[in-house]
């Protein structure tokens, strides 16, 4: 079943996607499947192992079950300070 996911992009992912956010209709069960789809579409260079995931503004596992209207962020390696 298709659901609507809000995806927000930061840093190198934002630049590679060419947008800071998009709304995706997807059958992806979890962030892992969703990244696979979006990586093919946008040509993201980062491997999943280099990323973390946030669902609805908190960290979540790659196999978290996605629900309709969830907000997802893929988090590149951080570099604060």
């Amino acid at each position: 079943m298709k659901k609507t996911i809000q995806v927000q992009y930061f840093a190198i992912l934002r630049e590679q996607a060419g947008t800071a956010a998009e709304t995706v209709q997807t059958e992806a069960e979890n962030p892992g499947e969703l990244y696979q789809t979006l990586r093919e579409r946008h040509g993201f260079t980062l491997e999943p192992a280099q990323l973390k995931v946030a669902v609805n503004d908190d960290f979540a596992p790659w196999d978290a079950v996605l629900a309709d209207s969830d907000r997802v962020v893929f988090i590149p390696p951080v570099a604060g300070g």
Partner: protein
Amino acid sequence: MRFEISSQPIDPAELRRTLENIRAGACVTFEGWVRDFNEGRTVLRLAYEAFDTLAVKEGERILEEAKRDFDIFDICCVHRSGVLELGDLAVWVGVSAQHRGAAFDACRYVIDEVKTRVPIWKKEFYEDGDSGWINAGAG
């Protein structure tokens, strides 16, 4: 206790005053400054981008861990977002405590954790016109 992502310049003197406490004998601060050289390249300026809501949530968790694990009174961290020039203050951490050991340890804990856990990204702009996101190796 306060963690903040700020798009405006950080005023260290004002932040330091928020830690004052007549029961405290020690105050340790850390400042991260934008420097002109990184990994062999001359840097002209930086841009920080933050995932604000999660950055604040994770930053507050780090400060709570520091309060729990070290004998301190107060602790504060502010991290910049946006474009920064050489010499600008990128991040400020301040801790007040009864004794200096806990203040040093907590301050160092916070900056170490912030650098690895808080979703903030740094783009460096180089003298040769190139630029790049730090840590975002081609993979």
